């Protein structure tokens, strides 16, 4: 069976910098694939290119036999590819309900959003309590839940999660990964970008390790977690030390 998503030799320029230098990767149906690597490796650029927010210089991104590099962002969402972006990017002055409804923008007028809202509340009960509150008043963890809930409202066949644990307290990180595992169990196909490599490799089926715009390593998540190189570079304290560094840079 052909993969749900396949990137082939994708190059992306980010301003004058070549952020992604010819990467190829695949996500198969019902698979959870992690894309890990240090800050600045090109992970977020890769996800945004899949979503059509950036245009690749060369390469193809095939999803369901269609080349996404030829489509606009809104059409890509319409095909069932939804993203929970890095830094959450919720709409701060709009209510939680409005944020969630916006996730269903491409679903058309007659979509049964009630059932989908229920599903989001089952995953994130706290959002139900906050429905009328402005998104900007939520805590960081709640905002992350809102960003993921908003992406779920698109009823995605492929869910792109960009750094869902970034800047969150350990307790909340655990909670977010529980939800990711639950979504996988429900059969959602997921491409997860994470700096927290240890956590990502725990939930993923397969993983790609990205280094300065290239895929350095790839394979089964358990095998990679046991790989001494990966352990040294990304697991041996790097996950703990790397994360606050990125948070501090953006504060």
């Amino acid at each position, binding site marked *: 069976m052909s993969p749900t998503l396949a990137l082939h030799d994708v190059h992306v320029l980010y301003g004058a910098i070549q952020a992604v230098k010819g990467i190829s990767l695949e996500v198969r149906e019902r698979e959870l694939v992690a894309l890990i690597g240090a800050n600045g490796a090109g992970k977020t650029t890769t996800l945004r290119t899949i979503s059509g927010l950036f245009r690749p210089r060369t390469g193809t991104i095939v999803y369901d036999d269609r080349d996404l590099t030829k489509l606009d962002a809104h059409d890509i969402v319409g095909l069932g590819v939804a993203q929970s*972006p890095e830094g959450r*990017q919720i*709409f701060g002055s709009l209510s939680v309900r409005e944020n969630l409804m916006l996730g269903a923008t491409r679903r058309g*007028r007659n979509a049964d959003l009630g059932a989908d809202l229920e599903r989001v509340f089952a995953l994130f009960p706290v959002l139900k309590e906050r429905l009328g509150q402005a998104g900007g008043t939520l805590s960081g963890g709640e905002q992350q839940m809102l960003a993921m809930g908003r992406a779920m409202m698109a009823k995605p066949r492929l869910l792109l999660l960009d750094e869902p644990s970034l800047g969150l307290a350990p307790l909340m990180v655990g909670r977010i990964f529980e939800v990711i595992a639950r979504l996988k169990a429900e059969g959602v196909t997921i491409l997860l970008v994470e700096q927290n490599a240890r956590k990502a490799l725990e939930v993923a089926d397969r993983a790609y390790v990205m280094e300065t715009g290239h895929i350095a390593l790839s394979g089964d998540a358990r095998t990679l977690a046991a790989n001494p190189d990966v352990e040294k570079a990304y697991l041996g304290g790097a996950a703990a030390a790397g994360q606050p560094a990125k948070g501090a840079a953006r504060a």
Partner: protein
Amino acid sequence: MLGAAGLVLLALFLAYADASFTSYRLQLVSLVAINAVVAIALTVTSGYTGVFSLGQIGFFGIGAYVGALLTIAPKWKAPRVLPGLPEWLAGFDTTSWPPQLALLLACLAAGVVAAAVAVVVGLPLMRLSGHYVAVATLGFLIIVNAVLINWASVTRGARGLNQIPSHTTTWVAFAWVIVAIYAALRLRSSPYGRAMLAQRENLLAARGIGISILPTRLLAFVFGAFFTGAAGALLAHQIGAVAPTLFSFTTTFTVVIMVVLGGLGSVSGAVVGAAIMTLAPEFLREVEGGFTIGAIQVGAHHGLAQIILAVGFILVMIFRPTGLFGDRELGVAFLSRRPPNFDAQGADESLTPIVDAGVDAVPEDTRN
């Protein structure tokens, strides 16, 4: 409930005004309404979307001229006066129509023509952002002005059009305000309105969830143009004459101040801003003539009104930078609600109780 009470109060006020106001004061009341419609339109075009348009008054001018040309009696728009008019329009006679029907036609036609122009102008301009769109829409205003001045065979050039029947009453003007308020609030709670606010708030995230930016902004631009065009026709039938100078930079900035003063994005703020900006100069004009406070006598100082008004804006902008209303609406909730605290980084996670997944989480009301 609140809306019904407001309508009753408005009707009582208008009935009282009809009975006891001088015609000058009545005209002021109508002007408040006309300006309110324009300010509401700009609230949608710029406040909802964050796309700052300085071309709004161009649509005001288009609407005023289109409305006027429809209702001016044929003898005043005959070929020897306006040789450029098409025959059907030169002969179009509404003098025997009920005045309100003629005015309704004039307003709707003015709105539709302005909206059609907005589609053509907006298609290229709504792709721009920030300062660029402000400058480009200002360019549109300049073009409209140049056309009004130079297309003399239709507009009578700088002399403008007169002999426009005075069909606009305070009642009709406020009916348009109510329609505009209703339409703007309905739009705000529709998926289209949400998309406008979302792309204003975070363009990348809005694109990422599948909002198509150009049609979203274009809809707001065309919506604003329709109501501004209709308001232009109301103005023409209020003052009986129109000239290019009415649709200038000065008018543009007055409307921008109305909207910013009230709170960019708030429909109620736009109405309040329009009322203040229309009435305050009138009241302050008396101050200009000199006044006495206790033992202190102040003589006549020309320009004092503008200075007081300007100091007022500065104070509002210092103490309420988002305007009187921010982007909230007047209502029961407004009186009891605290302003939202925007905390992008989020509060301390460890203090947030984590509620476990409840299976019985059923939403009571899932749609707006």
